[in-house]
């Protein structure tokens, strides 16, 4: 408990608060740009945190990732295009509300719900640490290897439209992660004689290439502004009151957000839809959903902020990222010299609590700034994307070059960008590839240690067997549901022809 409050005093130091606000402002800026979510934001920050003190770097990273689900509401409500994958469902009712002249009410409700959801996520993370401690400490390398495998298999099965492509996408990530020097012996793999590849492709390059580059290309091709509505209307307070009136929805959906954030593979792309689906299923009066029902804004917005707290649980405790942005956060931890996993609880518990406090404070700052700056932000969203794109190219190329400060970074960015764009167009889930890339090193190291320490006996450990059963079950379920979906689609198709 002492450490918990000591961390608060660290978080409240002026330097830390300044960094937190910087992160929050960056998160708000990135959130309003469609398609650019936590992965891109975190990746841009990675070169900045090199050499930083971990508490300060945490403030910057968590400040940013915590508020993206708050500010991505602007494009969702103002034009009906998601600011990030976590705010797709907000469009269903947020955009109709804006068209009715109630954008301020929708935004007021969304920001309040986001704030409560974010605080709920931080609270759950706080409570889970002492409970999880004995379980986490019982995990050895074999179990951690299986857990990484479970994370990847779940990501593969759940993150895309087809499980087989999800698994292959994760595999592409693993193979990219396997480039360069082998961890166990002095051998360079898949370098094609290129010196740059000897250290592997840096995370910054992979993250920006797979995620930022394709979004910039797509927005340039579409060639329009983020929003075409520049007025907010009235009803800020009504929106806040709506959220407080529907407090049970906020709590229920925040809980869903935490669970979804905790499970590897689900993350941002589905959390809002699950919350939205839940609220429709549990409401008696459903006729207004999709036409501007405020509950359809509150549900996804409380869930998508709460998921960040949930996502930090497996990232910190097991070193298994729950989502793409958590994968980049994991890379950030390694840059700072912190090894995520069971050791976080024994050696770096102060950092965990710093992250929790930062998460809570960032949500408060994010909500306040979003409300205070809503008018200028709304005016910003009507700027055509062709004005923003050149600056985004500047930011990603400049950030990318900081990875190793060699030409290889820029060339690799272009190659990764083309790969990411093709993957995006043809239904290969990119988050799976990113998580595969981040976990590749851990997978190999844990496997190596397991075999060295236990021989093949590690396969018979109870924890390994349980996790193997869960992996098999999740893969089988994914394939089963996909087969059912395909057969339903085929039946519908033949029905149409008949």
């Amino acid at each position, binding site marked *: 408990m002492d450490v918990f409050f000591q961390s608060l005093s660290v978080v409240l130091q002026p330097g830390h608060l300044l960094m937190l606000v910087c992160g929050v402002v960056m998160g708000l800026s990135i959130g309003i740009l469609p398609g650019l979510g936590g992965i891109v934001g975190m990746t841009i920050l990675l070169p900045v945190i090199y050499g930083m003190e971990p508490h300060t770097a945490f403030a910057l990273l968590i400040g940013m990732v915590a508020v993206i689900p708050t500010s991505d509401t602007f494009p969702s409500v103002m034009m009906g295009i998601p600011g990030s994958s976590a705010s797709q469902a907000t469009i269903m009712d947020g955009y109709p509300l804006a068209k009715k002249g109630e954008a301020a009410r929708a935004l007021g409700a969304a920001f309040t719900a986001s704030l409560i959801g974010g605080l709920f996520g931080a609270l759950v993370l706080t409570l889970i640490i002492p409970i999880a401690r004995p379980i986490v400490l019982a995990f050895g390398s074999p179990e951690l290897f299986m857990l990484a495998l479970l994370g990847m298999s779940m990501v593969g099965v759940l993150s895309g439209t087809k499980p087989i492509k999800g698994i292959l996408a994760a595999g592409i990530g*693993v193979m990219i992660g396997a480039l360069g020097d082998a961890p166990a*012996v002095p051998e360079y793999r898949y370098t094609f004689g290129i010196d740059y590849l000897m250290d592997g492709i840096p995370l910054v390059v992979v993250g920006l290439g797979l995620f930022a580059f394709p979004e910039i290309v797509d927005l340039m*091709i579409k060639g329009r502004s983020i929003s075409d509505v520049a007025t907010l209307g009235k009803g800020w307070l009504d929106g806040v009151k709506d959220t407080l009136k529907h407090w049970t929805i906020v709590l229920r959906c925040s809980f869903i957000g935490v669970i979804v954030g905790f499970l590897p593979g689900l993350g941002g792309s589905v959390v809002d839809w699950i919350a939205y689906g839940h609220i429709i299923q549990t409401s008696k009066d459903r006729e207004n959903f999709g036409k501007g029902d405020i509950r359809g804004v509150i549900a996804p917005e409380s869930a998508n902020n709460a998921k960040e707290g949930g996502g930090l649980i497996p990232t910190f405790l097991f070193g298994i990222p729950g989502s793409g942005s958590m994968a980049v956060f994991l890379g950030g931890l390694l840059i700072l010299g912190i090894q995520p996993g069971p050791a976080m609880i024994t050696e770096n518990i102060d950092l965990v609590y710093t992250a929790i406090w930062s998460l809570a404070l960032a949500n408060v700052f994010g909500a306040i700034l979003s409300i205070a700056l809503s008018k200028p932000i709304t005016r910003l969203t009507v700027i055509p994307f*062709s004005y923003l794109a050149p600056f985004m*190219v500047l930011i990603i*190329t*400049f950030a990318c070059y900081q990875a190793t400060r060699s030409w290889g970074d820029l060339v690799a960015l272009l190659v990764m960008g083309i790969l990411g764009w093709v993957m995006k167009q043809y239904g290969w889930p990119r988050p799976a590839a990113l998580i595969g890339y981040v976990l590749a090193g851990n997978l190999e190291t844990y496997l190596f240690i397991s075999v060295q320490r236990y021989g093949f006996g590690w396969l018979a450990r109870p924890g390994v067997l349980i996790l193997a059963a869960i992996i098999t079950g999740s893969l089988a379920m994914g394939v089963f549901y996909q087969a059912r979906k395909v057969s339903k689609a085929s039946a519908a198709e033949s029905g149409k022809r008949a």
Partner: protein
Amino acid sequence: MVRKIGLGFSVLVTLSFGYGIYEALSYAYLAKIFPLYVSLVLCIIAIANLIQEIRASYRRTEKTAASAADLETEWGDIAMSEVLRKFSVFILVIIILYCAIWFIGYPVSITLFIIILYRYVAGTKWRWAVVAGLAGLGFLALVSKLLYMDWPQGFIMLPWPLG
């Protein structure tokens, strides 16, 4: 066309995993174990995926075809051929930018890139395009000084903050 590219990408992925196996065989024992088995398993899955895609493209069931577009991307009225054309142009522009960086360095190249895009893509007046370009250069100079960041040097060495 769209399906052919999707199928082509699946073939490329399968071949890459195949190459992964071939290349891994030449490594020392401890270096090859992980990539060899990962590539082997993935190659089998990739072949299964390829067979599924070929069968789906024969069936021509739009929604179930493996090459169906990602839900993330909705092009609306824009034809896929137009999308591919614009994508190719964008890549070409980036390659030209890289060539310029190699020759005159990053700051001048990116400034010119911003000015040209503002003038010819966004359609602003020259005056505003130059202001935007200089703003980009100012941002670069500020960030590089504050955060000790570096940028690619060109063949022609220019004084700071131009090179």
